């Protein structure tokens, strides 16, 4: 049982890292970004490219993946999202555009890497006890867990203590007021994309350390990501973190109770629905003022 909880925490931590960007972009831009999952895939394949091409360990590719994810996010902000905002595009138009971006990214990866699953090339790892607890994890799982927790704490510090983070929260409260308070909203939005896109790509590398890579990886991960941010209260970064861990743990623990592995994703959604029946605005949704 503990072992399943531990597996769930690893999965949950990775979901949390990837979900932060999705919820930040929603809260600041009111954009439900269906291309977010493909940033996760892009990160994983960036690490694969470096791993196969240069022989680096996937963990060493994390900073590169962050930069690639952030750069693509900025590019799309300049080419697509900023223009659509200026034209005051409707929410539905933005969603459809994001699905288009998602398809383009995914098929680009299929074009270069083919549709079949691939693995990082590295020595086989044995699961070892983690921190003296009665659970075992591979070195990569341990790394993914620690890296996720560090990133989550870093995002917390950013939002709570830095001017940029406070400004990002201000923007999610009221964009027009942010503009007339003298804040250059376009600049803060760009930083939001850097953080969101970069973290999604990093989440992809961590995810790839624990299972095979395939071009639909991010697309399939998108549903648990949405489940996590809706569970937490959409637009609340802390909700996304809590939701990510909850979804991950519930999924993995369900296997312990005899749920077939192929259905464990569904269990995550059942958990989300039950939680929303109890907390209709999400776990963190009630503490919001208008």
């Amino acid at each position, binding site marked *: 049982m503990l072992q399943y909880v531990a597996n769930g925490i690893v999965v949950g931590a990775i979901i949390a890292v990837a979900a932060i960007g999705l919820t930040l972009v929603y809260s600041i831009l009111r954009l439900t970004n269906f291309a977010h999952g493909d940033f996760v895939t892009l990160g994983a394949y960036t690490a694969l490219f470096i791993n196969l091409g240069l022989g680096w360990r996937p963990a060493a590719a994390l900073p590169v993946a962050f930069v690639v994810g952030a750069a693509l996010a900025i590019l799309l902000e300049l080419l697509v999202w900023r223009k659509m905002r200026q034209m005051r595009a409707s929410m539905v138009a933005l969603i459809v555009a994001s699905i288009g971006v998602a398809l383009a990214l995914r098929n680009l990866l299929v074009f270069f890497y083919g549709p079949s699953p691939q693995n990082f090339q590295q020595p086989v790892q044995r699961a070892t006890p983690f921190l003296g607890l009665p659970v075992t994890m591979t070195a990569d799982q341990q790394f993914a867990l620690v890296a996720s927790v560090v990133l989550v704490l870093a995002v917390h510090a950013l939002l709570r203590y830095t001017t940029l983070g406070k400004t990002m929260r*201000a923007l999610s409260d009221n964009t*027009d007021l942010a503009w007339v308070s003298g804040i250059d909203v376009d600049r803060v939005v760009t930083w939001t994309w850097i953080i969101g896109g970069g973290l999604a790509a990093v989440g992809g590398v961590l995810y790839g350390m624990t299972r095979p890579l395939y071009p639909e990886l991010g697309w399939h991960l998108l549903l648990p990501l949405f489940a996590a941010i809706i569970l937490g209260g959409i637009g609340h970064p802390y909700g996304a973190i809590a939701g990510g861990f909850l979804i991950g743990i519930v999924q993995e623990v369900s296997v312990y109770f005899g749920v077939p592995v192929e259905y464990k994703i569904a269990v995550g959604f059942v958990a989300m629905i039950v939680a929303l029946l109890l907390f209709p605005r999400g776990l963190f949704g009630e503490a919001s003022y208008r």
Partner: protein
Amino acid sequence: MNAVDQQDGARTGAPAGAEMLVMEDIVAGYVPGVDILQGVSLTVRQGELVSIIGPNGAGKSTLLKVLMGLLRPRRGSIRFQGRELVGLKPSAIVALGLSYVPQVRNVFPNLTVRENLEIAAAVAGPGAPQRIQRILDIFPDLRDKLRSKAGTLSGGQRQMLAMGRALILEPKLLVLDEPSAGLAPQMVNAVFQKIAEINEQGCTILMIEQNARRALEMSHRGYVLDMGRNAVDDTGRALLENPRVVELYLGKIAQQQDA
């Protein structure tokens, strides 16, 4: 334009300052084909307190949104100290020395009072702690509330925070949209008194006010807007004594206040 002429404490003439803000022939609207503003012009001189009054739907708030760059006018020009503002981002307009307090939703509710002031202070430049101290000296009621979320403040405290947020930028021109709206009568007096003090310390002010009589009494000059056009403009005192203005725009409010 007019000589300074103080009577009965009401300010009747404009300080002889240079033209600071000139809005000319502004046409604007939200929906294609519908012009809320149909050619409004307005001038504010250095050191003045200027009020815009008029019935609901006259386009007063829309005029301020156009001024601050939140809504692009279809026609017309806005010059602030000689610089054209039309086409600039709102943040660039603020950087030139304008600061704006909207009527509603004028604080960031999920940020604490301190965080609200901090992000404004960060925009203003270095010396944030001193800037925040200065605002707390002007609005001492905020001191006890620094760690509260702005969304939990009372109407009056919220208005003080919104004005504090705007003043922290040390604006040349403070733009206020109905600063007394929704406040208890006691708070209304306090807010008007603060506005008069801020103006006396040299900050030029342009404000919209529903409480027209009170606003005109303390203003150097006033503009009456109606149906998206300039109806009348004159000194505050002259508008108060203008029978047409009294009948059309002040009568009802005066009755309400007497009742």
